């Protein structure tokens, strides 16, 4: 078959994903995560009598735990299929990346498997986070120094 014809045929039969529907789903998913975060902050600051800032740290640890647990149980992938970026952009996506890497490479051993491959997916978040934070921090220090 002619190559052009083939590519046209492929295009015709590739399932088209409804963009606006997916964006709406992501909005709902992200919104639910935001609600959950704010709710947990309120609950923790009420239960343990801590400041809002510390309750925020507790909340992040709780969400990471939930993300890891759901990944282990196999529910996270199904939820991501529905909510898409609504679960990847919140901190649960970071937890999911780490947990799926450790689960997948576990059979290669504790050191060469879990140890070396733990940050295979989540490493870029930490690496580029630190790189960008350092770069912007230097810029900000220079600007503050000039303004003084």
């Amino acid at each position, binding site marked *: 078959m002619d190559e052009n014809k083939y590519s046209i045929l492929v295009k015709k039969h590739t399932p088209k994903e409804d963009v606006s529907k997916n964006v709406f789903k992501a909005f709902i*998913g992200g919104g639910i995560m935001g609600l959950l975060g704010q709710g947990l902050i309120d609950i923790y600051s009420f239960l343990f009598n801590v400041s809002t800032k510390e309750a925020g740290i507790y909340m992040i640890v709780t969400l990471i735990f939930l993300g890891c647990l759901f990944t282990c149980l196999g529910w996270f992938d199904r939820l991501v299929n529905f909510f898409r970026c609504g679960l*990847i952009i*919140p901190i649960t*996506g970071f937890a999911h*990346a780490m947990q799926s890497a450790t689960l997948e490479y576990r059979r290669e051993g504790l050191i060469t498997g879990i140890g070396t491959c733990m940050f295979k997916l989540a490493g870029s978040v930490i690496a580029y986070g630190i790189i960008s934070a350092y770069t912007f921090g230097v810029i*900000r*220090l220079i600007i503050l120094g000039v303004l003084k």
Partner: protein
Amino acid sequence: MIYLKSFIFCGLVSALAELILSKTKLTPGHMTTLFVIVGSFLDVFDIYDKLIVWAGGGALVPITSFGHLLIHGAMDMATNSNFMGLLTGMLNLTAAGITSAIIISFYLSLIFKPKD
């Protein structure tokens, strides 16, 4: 009211990511990295602090807050000891998140087996 605001803010960030993801050929890994950089950029002039005051927990949940916490800890230290403070304070506020992610994912991977 703060609940509605956190719903809207976190939802909008996720919807924006989904929009970029569907319009370009980037992967979810690219998106999380991009949003961390955006978060730390927004904190250069304290914009993200105002967003947190406005949206509460909704602004702490997205991965952008990770970048914000990184540069925030660094700048807190840097007020006392300039450029050396950037290095010592970088992981101050995110330590809980990174450490708990490592420990939880390690022990859970010992308990559970991969599904497929």
